[in-house]
């Protein structure tokens, strides 16, 4: 880092001052003023009697010199700001290793130091969170593995169990399943919020994505209607998870999905998922995307984790889009996901 040493000799201090931003500004203005005065003096002596001529000449030359110096100066002044802007953009996009380079300019040094220290702290915090997610994941998943595996073995031999034990086993399996999904969703949400992505975004065909998601969940392909295929820049697994959560939500609270459509509206892809259930009350239509909010839409007891829709909102936001809940014309709920088209789509 550049720091001025304790009491450098007089002439060196003068030199370092001239290299600093403030120094340069002062010198520039001083030179300009001096130059303009010189022009004034010269024109007065040369052009002598013509007062108006002298005045006009001075104004013209003076303004020109001032403008040139101003242009040069403004560029030099803005340059450090532009460097900071570029660095900030890179950091925001994920290149956490970016730092501003050391500078010899004593006026800029405090800014550079402060900026770099801020990024250091940010990076440390993100690393800590990443480690935490990993540790929690391991600590909770290990006992869950034993439970799931053992209960799986019991289920295979349930014929050997008396009726009551069989029912208890079914409950244990259901709750274990719930626990596992809760854990998966919580970790996925934590990662999504921290923008910890496990893959790069790639151009995806919305039609293919929806078709494969439906097929994987054994939905009839006739449910899907794609008016115009579109491409989004996205992460396959994250988008699949978001879609699955929306489908599950329709199943759990809306009696099942009745229609899925996809199409292009302007520069966005719009995906709609409809159910013909009781719909979502207007006052809840925004709340349901918050964590742990479950609204009892039907009489069935909730089997959801309360996080599914929060994850959808976070994922879609991370892809530059948004999701809203509204009413389906004819009854039921309609979830609309909009995302920007990838640049490759014309």
């Amino acid at each position, binding site marked *: 880092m550049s720091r001025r040493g304790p009491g450098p000799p007089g002439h060196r201090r003068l030199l370092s001052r001239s290299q600093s931003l403030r120094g340069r500004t002062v010198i520039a203005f001083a030179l300009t003023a001096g130059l303009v005065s010189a022009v004034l003096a010269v024109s007065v002596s040369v052009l002598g009697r013509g007062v108006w001529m002298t005045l006009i000449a001075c104004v013209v030359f003076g303004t020109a010199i001032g403008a040139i110096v101003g242009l040069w100066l403004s560029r030099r002044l803005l340059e450090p700001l532009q460097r900071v802007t570029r660095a900030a953009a890179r950091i925001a996009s994920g290149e956490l290793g970016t730092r501003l380079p050391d500078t010899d300019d004593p006026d800029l040094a405090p800014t550079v130091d402060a900026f770099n220290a801020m990024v250091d702290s940010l990076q440390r915090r993100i690393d800590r969170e990443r480690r935490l997610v990993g540790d929690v*994941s*391991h600590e909770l*998943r290990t*006992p869950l*593995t034993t439970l799931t595996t053992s209960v799986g*073995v019991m289920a295979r031999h349930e014929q050997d169990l008396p009726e009551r034990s069989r029912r208890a086993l079914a409950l244990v399996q259901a709750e274990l399943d719930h626990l596992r999904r809760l854990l998966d969703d919580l970790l996925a949400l934590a990662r999504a919020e921290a923008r910890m992505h*496990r893959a790069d975004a790639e151009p995806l065909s919305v039609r293919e994505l929806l078709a494969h998601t439906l097929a994987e969940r054994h939905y009839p392909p006739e449910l899907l209607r794609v008016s115009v295929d579109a491409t989004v820049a996205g992460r396959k*697994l994250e988008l699949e998870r978001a879609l699955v959560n929306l489908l599950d939500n329709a199943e759990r609270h809306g009696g099942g999905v009745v229609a899925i459509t996809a199409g292009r509206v302007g520069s966005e892809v719009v995906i709609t998922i409809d159910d013909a259930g009781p719909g979502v009350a207007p006052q809840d239509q925004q709340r349901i995307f918050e964590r742990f909010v479950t609204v009892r839409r039907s009489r069935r007891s909730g089997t959801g984790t309360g996080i599914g829709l929060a994850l959808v909102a976070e994922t879609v936001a991370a892809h530059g889009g948004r999701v809203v809940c509204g009413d389906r014309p004819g009854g039921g709920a309609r979830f609309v996901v909009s995302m920007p088209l990838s640049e490759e789509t014309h």
Partner: protein
Amino acid sequence: MTANLMIVEDDDRVRGALRLAMEDEGYDVAEAEEAEDALEHLRDNGAPDVMIVDLMLGDMDGFTCIREIRRDHDVPIIVVSARDDTHDVVAALEAGADDFVTKPFEIKEITARMRALRRRANQTIEPQTPQELVLDADPELPLVLSPEGGTVRRGEEELHLTLTEFRLLCELAETPGRVLSRSVLLERVWDRGFFGDERIVDVHVRRLRTKIERDPSDPVVVVTVRGLGYRLDVQR
């Protein structure tokens, strides 16, 4: 015929549960609590038909364990871990694992993957594949693939590929000059669908390159086609 399975897992209860489930599936199960025990077992008894190795082991970390196993054995290895951080997945695959499963898993899922791995081991190659395919016609040290013989040779020296690496190479070599997408490779080599983890393909291609290419940093046989997938180019 009973297949042999070795489970390398330091947590007693997880190991016990896994043993229970695998024996239920018909496997002959050997256990090891630590990497050292596993390596010793391999030295004394040879390699089992398939191995399940946990990444978080007590004495030696999972990656080192896998690398040690790979020094002498081709045995199919499935890695299990509670952590599914990209770094862990890639490191495990780079170290030599054939597949990666996150805990907790459905028993059906892991047994399906084990079956796929073992099927590859016993697979007989379809007759359409030529007897031998020269992949790099270097006059001194040609690279020759023999799908039926199950070998790859550089000159006189036989290269040691794992089952999965070999299978991947054969798959690419079946259609030289044609690009195969990661999805397709995932489907054919790992029996995985559209949403399979494509990192497995990328890492295996990387591993393959270090073994068969003359300059792995500048691959000419197994070529990346940006945005589309991979392609095998026969060098004449």
